């Protein structure tokens, strides 16, 4: 019985992240439109888009190999696994032992690798340029991400997400500049990884500096639906990561009563909505960067994360 309950807990989280992902993306699009004084599509539009793409005819290039056909499913599956592992409403679920920060980074790396391969598979110039830029961004964002992991590991003594969230909820860690810097760096990394402004523009196919959209330009039909869904889940993944690491309040930790779980669930949904509203406001207030400025943007994320590690050494000693 206990095992069934635990399994149900994990299943709820697994289904939840996929179920709300298009909604969260829809909210960001709606808020973005309102900030820009447009009406914007309905909040549920992303669901309709994915549904429509599922039923559309799929066009394949003649020279497309199996990589091109497998990649969308692989990307979606890997992103889903990563998102399902990040604690959302409750810590210490059935699979929480495997929800390590480094595992999440590795899973995201796998998804990115598959998508970059698919971008180059058909051999168009646009896909190639997208893949090469995606790899450049990844090579800049990943060191920053690993330094963030180090910072959190130094504060919490573990890289297991569930344990970190439980620790931050239950024990006061105080006002730490390091954690603030890590949050700043994580936001920069999340913006870069999710192809948002100022790094990339998710709303257009018509820009020469685009990255993510250039890679998936050849896709259509249900392949494109998979990729769009994966992008939405990835956004939720990073939101959940920020919420779980830096505002884990409300999460059910030790107490497993129904009310605690309900509070955790509501808190999680509230946090997601707030983040989904903050992202487009931030996006609307900055201009898209030139490609040559990416290293500076992500370099400052790296610098912030490195500084966070240094500061921890001063206050703790070696």
């Amino acid at each position: 019985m206990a095992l069934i309950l635990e399994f149900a807990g994990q299943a709820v989280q697994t289904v939840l992240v996929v179920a709300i992902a298009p909604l969260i993306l829809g909210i960001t699009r709606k808020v973005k439109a309102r900030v820009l004084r447009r009406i914007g599509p309905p909040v549920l539009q992303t669901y309709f888009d994915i549904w429509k793409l599922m039923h559309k005819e799929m066009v394949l290039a003649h020279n497309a190999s199996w990589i091109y056909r497998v990649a969308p499913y692989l990307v979606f599956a890997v992103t889903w696994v990563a998102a399902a592992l990040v604690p959302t409403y409750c810590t210490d679920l059935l699979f929480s032992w495997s929800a390590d920060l480094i595992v999440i980074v590795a899973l995201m790396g796998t998804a990115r690798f598959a998508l970059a391969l698919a971008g180059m598979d058909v051999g168009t110039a646009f896909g190639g340029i997208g893949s090469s830029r995606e790899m450049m961004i990844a090579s800049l964002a990943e060191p920053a991400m690993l330094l963030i992991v180090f910072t959190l590991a130094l504060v919490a003594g573990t890289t297991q997400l569930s344990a970190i969230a439980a620790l931050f909820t239950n024990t006061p860690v105080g006002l730490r500049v390091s954690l603030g810097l890590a949050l700043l760096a994580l936001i920069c990394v999340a913006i870069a990884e999710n192809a948002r402004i100022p790094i990339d523009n998710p709303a257009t196919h018509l820009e020469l500096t685009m990255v993510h959209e250039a890679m998936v330009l050849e896709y259509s039909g249900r392949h494109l639906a998979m990729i769009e869904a994966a992008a939405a889940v990835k956004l939720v993944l990073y939101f959940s990561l920020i919420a779980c690491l830096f505002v884990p309040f409300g999460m059910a930790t030790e107490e497993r009563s129904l009310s605690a779980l309900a509070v955790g669930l509501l808190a999680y949904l509230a946090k997601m909505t707030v983040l989904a509203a903050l992202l487009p406001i931030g996006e609307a207030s900055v201009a898209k960067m030139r490609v040559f400025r990416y290293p500076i943007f992500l370099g400052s994320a790296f610098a912030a994360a490195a500084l966070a590690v240094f500061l921890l050494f001063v206050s703790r000693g070696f």
Partner: protein
Amino acid sequence: MGTLAFDIVHFLSGGMLVLSLLLLYQARIPAVVNVFAMQAIVLALSVAWQAYLQNAPHLIVTAAIALVVKGLVIPFALHRIVRRLEIHREIETVIGGGPTMLTGLALVALAILLVQPSEAGIVTREDLAFALAVILLGLLMMITRRNAVTQVIGFMSIENGLVLAATGAKGMPLVVEISVAFSILIAFTVFGVFVFRIRERFDTVDVTVVDRFRGERGEHQ
């Protein structure tokens, strides 16, 4: 000292260090001036908090000097100078974001490594490490920038670091602080005059032209 008190000290001096790095990162001159003003305000807060903790009323004077002179007067004057020189739209090209930031980080690490072996208490040690890092970053800024105005700001941020170090360790006499503040003001005036002289002669405040200048019969005649 309670944990909250310590946390606030940590937060404010850490904030100063972050602002120092931000100074290195900014390329537009008005933005640099604004970040400098912010750093001075954080310094004033930090000093005021130390005054409360150490029960030392003379530190309040130091905080007030930092707030009024460096947080308001100097940035205001710098904004005026920048506007009169018509360089407020200029972007400094020399700032090699990556290498400069990496050097800056290396300097922070150096400061921490230097202070680490000292026997002082953890609060003093942390404060000294932050202050030393701010000073080194100010020096780095003076080296890497080519514009005279941003070099002046680098110099001023060194002084911010000095005040931070002095207030963290107990007992800097007020006389010293006032004289330092005055010398900063005088230095600022002298710098201002110099900036305008450079501008008058070379039509730019980029100091690399001064390097090439070889007396009145040189290339700029």
